[in-house]
């Protein structure tokens, strides 16, 4: 079984399972068929069924993982493409998103205390509303478990996409700025895909909230975590 010690194994099953995940999503057209989660379950299934150690997968996985950092840098292009809109609504964007970041922090912290989560899990949950590459960076700083953060980020995105249409119905008089910012701040790119279905403007504001909410969270949350004594 020497092919298992080669990076090609991890890279190959990652690509194949992700393609399968994309096919399933296209076939069923349902938000529950998240390609990342499907691929993760398939890979874990393969490793468990064939008794392949995780370390064999990791040899190849690390090559893919490497690209997360250049990907984060590339988010700067996304931010640049939205510069006009950000400039125009700067104050509403920054204060609105900051209110969301603070709400996210204290709601996770309070609920976590109610359910007696240990500190390590709480720290892994705090970055859950922001886009995955930034959430990974933040969890590493806070000292949480990165894989746990990733799963929570995906669940957050999916639940945000599910909730968004109801929330919008709750506030029929709200302008597209508030709707978009609310969806993007709470549920990053996955929520944004739903915001785009609700309207072009909602989608644009939601996607501008992704990078800004990420930045504000990465800067603010370590301070808040220190303030409540988590780190």
């Amino acid at each position, binding site marked *: 079984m020497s092919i298992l010690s080669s990076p090609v194994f991890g890279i190959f099953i990652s690509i194949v399972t*992700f393609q399968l995940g994309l096919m399933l999503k296209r076939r069923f057209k349902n938000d529950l068929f*998240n390609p*990342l989660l499907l691929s993760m379950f398939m*890979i*874990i299934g393969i490793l468990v069924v064939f008794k392949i150690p*995780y370390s064999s997968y*990791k040899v190849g*996985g690390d090559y*893919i*993982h490497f690209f*997360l*950092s*250049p*990907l*984060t*840098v*590339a*988010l*700067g*292009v*996304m931010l*640049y493409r939205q510069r006009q809109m950000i400039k125009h609504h700067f*104050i509403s964007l920054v*204060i609105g998103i900051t*209110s*969301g970041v603070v*709400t*996210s922090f204290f*709601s*996770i912290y309070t*609920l*976590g205390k109610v*359910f007696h*989560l240990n500190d390590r*899990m709480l720290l892994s*949950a705090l970055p859950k*509303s922001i886009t*995955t*590459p*930034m959430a990974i*960076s933040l969890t590493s700083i806070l000292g949480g*478990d990165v*894989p*746990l953060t*990733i799963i929570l980020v995906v*669940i*957050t995105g999916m*639940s945000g996409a599910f*909730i968004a249409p109801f*929330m919008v119905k709750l506030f029929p008089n*709200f*302008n597209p*700025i508030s*709707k978009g910012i609310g*969806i993007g*701040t709470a549920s990053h*790119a996955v929520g944004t895909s739903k915001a785009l279905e609700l309207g072009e403007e909602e989608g644009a504001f939601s996607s501008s909230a992704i990078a800004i909410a990420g*930045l504000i969270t*990465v*800067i603010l949350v370590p301070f808040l975590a220190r303030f409540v004594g988590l780190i």
Partner: protein
Amino acid sequence: MKYLLQLSILLAFWLVGEWLSQLIMPIIVIPGAIMGMLLLFIALTTGLLKESQIKDVSDFLLSNIAFFFIPASVAVLGVIDVLRDAAIPLFIIAIGSTIITMFITMVVTQLLTTARRKL
């Protein structure tokens, strides 16, 4: 050649971001890649770099974004024992906090935008 050049530009921003991040570490912790993102944004806004110089590789990475998280998510195998007891609370927290956050953000932004219009 075009793609390698574009990728090397992104890597250069990451590298400088990493260096700057360590430099300011005593004051504030900003991860190197995020610092690189900010530097890239600044370079594009000031015209030091043209969007076309990094467009293709950036779009490739951004449009396949979920793929690159697979290895990190498979690492959940390592924390599965801890997860077993806390799975349901974590699930409730994830969804509950998303609802509260979306609600508050929408209300605050709405109040803010309408207040500014009246001024």
